[in-house]
């Protein structure tokens, strides 16, 4: 109780409130512009969070990403171009509303169910996190090592491309994280004699490169996006309450699917939307109406992608294992601000943690008025030409990386990782797996080395401690799952 009041006091300051409103507006704008994703919005925000108080820093990430995931629906609905990948799943459906002349219904659904989904996700986070924290308190380095491996392998299993390529991307990401002197012996590893690499590769610069510079590179070869025609919208939220009552089952199912997929490492809002839309169609009484401007799937998928966002924070706060690419960035900020993720966050830093819950709630509530404003002014935002946006993004990437590391060399890191990110994506190597490896590398290595030193080089404690054994089995199962599934399928084909 004391914490609840204390946390409200930390949130209800001018700084935090201003940060929430400004980052929300920023998230809305970035999400609405095709080609700029919610992850990229977060990556470019990190340099600014560097200069904010801990709660304000996390608040800016939470609000910007929530708004961006919603506002990605807007160009999807109006132009059939998803603003963020999370809106791609139901873009056709939403666009069918526009062709029928009712874009306001689809946009309203996106807004209303995004806000409700975000709030649902927050409630789950509040309820589940402390339970998991009490379990996690008993973990030692052995368990954390397996947990890290399990999280990383999950990321390869849920990726879109072939698992082996995601696995390779993951290993490469982990490898990049080993560069520098940040290891048990303090010796320089893979620095190629460059003093700049002694402190390792700055994660923020690398992420800005992967998510922002790679996008500018893609813009160089992609055709221009068409401009939206100017239109006036009717009542946006008018029908939403009726839809909520009619599709409450779909909404709840979407919320649950969202939270669960969000919590899986490597799978975020975009995956949640695809799965929820497919589930909705599968269980619908009228699957033939899907794709023709039918609200059912739209409700379920919109509910899912925003609740996934909150779900992603569960493993991030508890174990330091990011649930998606947005929280992968956020974890870096948590460490930077001394709010190290882990179960102790719930005991020692409970007030800060509670303030994050408040921020989630506030952000999802102000999403509604801000979203209405955004929808009404969309045509102006979408008529901003792409060259102005992309050139600004490139300059912001360079300055942002410099601001975090205070070293000009980080501009080179940004450029290099732009090229790496572009190449990985182009040839089907999962960017999400790569990023997860990059972020989690130090944690996994530290737990591995600490455990081995504790046991004197003996690997048996990794398998004989009860929790550790369970996690080890799960990890090995996750590693072998793709090959086993393939064998099984082949076997069945032979049998037929």
């Amino acid at each position, binding site marked *: 109780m004391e914490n609840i009041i204390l946390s409200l006091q930390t949130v209800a300051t001018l700084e935090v409130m201003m940060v929430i409103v400004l980052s929300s507006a920023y998230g809305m704008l970035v999400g609405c512009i095709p080609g700029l994703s919610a992850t990229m919005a977060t990556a470019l925000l990190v340099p600014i969070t560097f200069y904010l108080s801990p709660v304000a820093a996390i608040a800016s990430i939470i609000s910007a990403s929530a708004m961006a995931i919603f506002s990605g629906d807007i160009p999807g609905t109006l132009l059939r171009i998803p603003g963020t990948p999370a809106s791609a799943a139901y873009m056709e459906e939403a666009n069918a509303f526009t062709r029928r002349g009712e874009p306001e219904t689809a946009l309203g659904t996106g807004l209303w169910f995004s806000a409700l989904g975000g709030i649902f996700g927050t409630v789950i986070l509040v309820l589940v996190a402390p339970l998991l924290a009490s379990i996690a308190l008993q973990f030692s380095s052995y368990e954390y090592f397996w947990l890290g491996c399990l999280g990383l392998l999950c990321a390869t299993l849920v990726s879109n491309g072939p698992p082996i*390529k995601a696995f390779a991307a993951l290993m490469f990401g*982990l490898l990049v994280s080993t560069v520098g002197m940040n290891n048990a*012996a303090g010796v320089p590893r*893979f620095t190629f004699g460059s003093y700049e690499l002694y402190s390792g590769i700055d994660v923020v610069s690398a992420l800005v490169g992967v998510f922002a510079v790679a996008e500018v590179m893609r813009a160089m070869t992609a055709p221009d996006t068409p401009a939206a025609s100017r239109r006036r919208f009717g009542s946006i939220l008018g029908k939403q309450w009726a839809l909520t009552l009619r599709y409450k089952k779909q909404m709840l199912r979407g919320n649950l699917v969202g939270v669960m997929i969000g919590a899986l490492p490597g799978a975020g809002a975009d995956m949640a939307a695809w799965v929820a839309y497919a589930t909705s169609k599968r269980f619908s009484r009228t699957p033939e109406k899907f794709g023709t401007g039918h609200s059912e799937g739209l409700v379920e998928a919109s509910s899912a992608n925003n609740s996934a966002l909150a779900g992603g924070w569960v493993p991030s706060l508890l174990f330091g294992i990011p649930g998606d690419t947005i929280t992968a960035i956020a974890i870096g900020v948590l460490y930077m601000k001394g709010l190290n993720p882990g179960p102790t966050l719930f005991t020692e830093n409970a007030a800060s943690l509670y303030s994050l819950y408040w921020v989630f709630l506030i952000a999802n509530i102000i999403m509604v008025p801000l979203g209405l404003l955004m929808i009404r002014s969309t045509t102006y935002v979408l008529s901003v030409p792409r060259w102005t946006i992309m*050139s600004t993004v490139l*300059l912001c990437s360079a*300055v942002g990386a410099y*601001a975090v590391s205070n070293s000009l060399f980080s501009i080179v890191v940004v450029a290099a990782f*732009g090229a790496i990110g572009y190449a990985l994506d182009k*040839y089907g190597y999962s960017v999400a797996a790569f990023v997860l490896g990059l972020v989690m590398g130090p944690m996994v290595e530290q737990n591995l080395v600490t455990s081995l030193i504790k046991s004197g080089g003996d690997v048996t404690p990794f398998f004989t401690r009860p929790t550790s054994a369970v996690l080890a089995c799960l990890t090995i199962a996750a590693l072998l799952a793709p090959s086993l599934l393939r064998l099984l399928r082949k076997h069945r084909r032979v049998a037929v």
Partner: protein
Amino acid sequence: MTLPDRIGGVVLLTLGVAVVIASLGLPAIPGQPVGPAIFPSVLGVALGLSGLIIFVKPERQPAQETQQLEALSVIGTLRLLSPVAVLILGYLIMESLGFLVTGFLIVLVISLLLRGSVVGSLLLSAVMTVVIYTIFASLLRVPLPAGILSLPW
């Protein structure tokens, strides 16, 4: 077309082997069973193996993708790499020319490459450089390199 995967596989395999060899040369922690070499060695082996699998069993790219790959001409490749090149050039001149000049040039080049109008690009470059300078240097107190030009605030 399986060529990209063949090349990717070889690159990953080579990288994996190189990492393992380099890791073996890392010093151990005196008196401890493991040191800084263990983690990268494991990664190197895993990376090399996955590279080998990708090389041996490349996936077929859809025909559409193949066309896109071939359509990427010399000019297309140069355009694609231009953001990277612009950043590296920016890094080289930032120290001596300062942020305002470098930032202006970065925005200008990218705007023009993305077919912005000349007047518009010049205007945008000037405005954006000043705005970003104000946010980072004046408000957030980031020590941006001053070089040959600085603003009064």
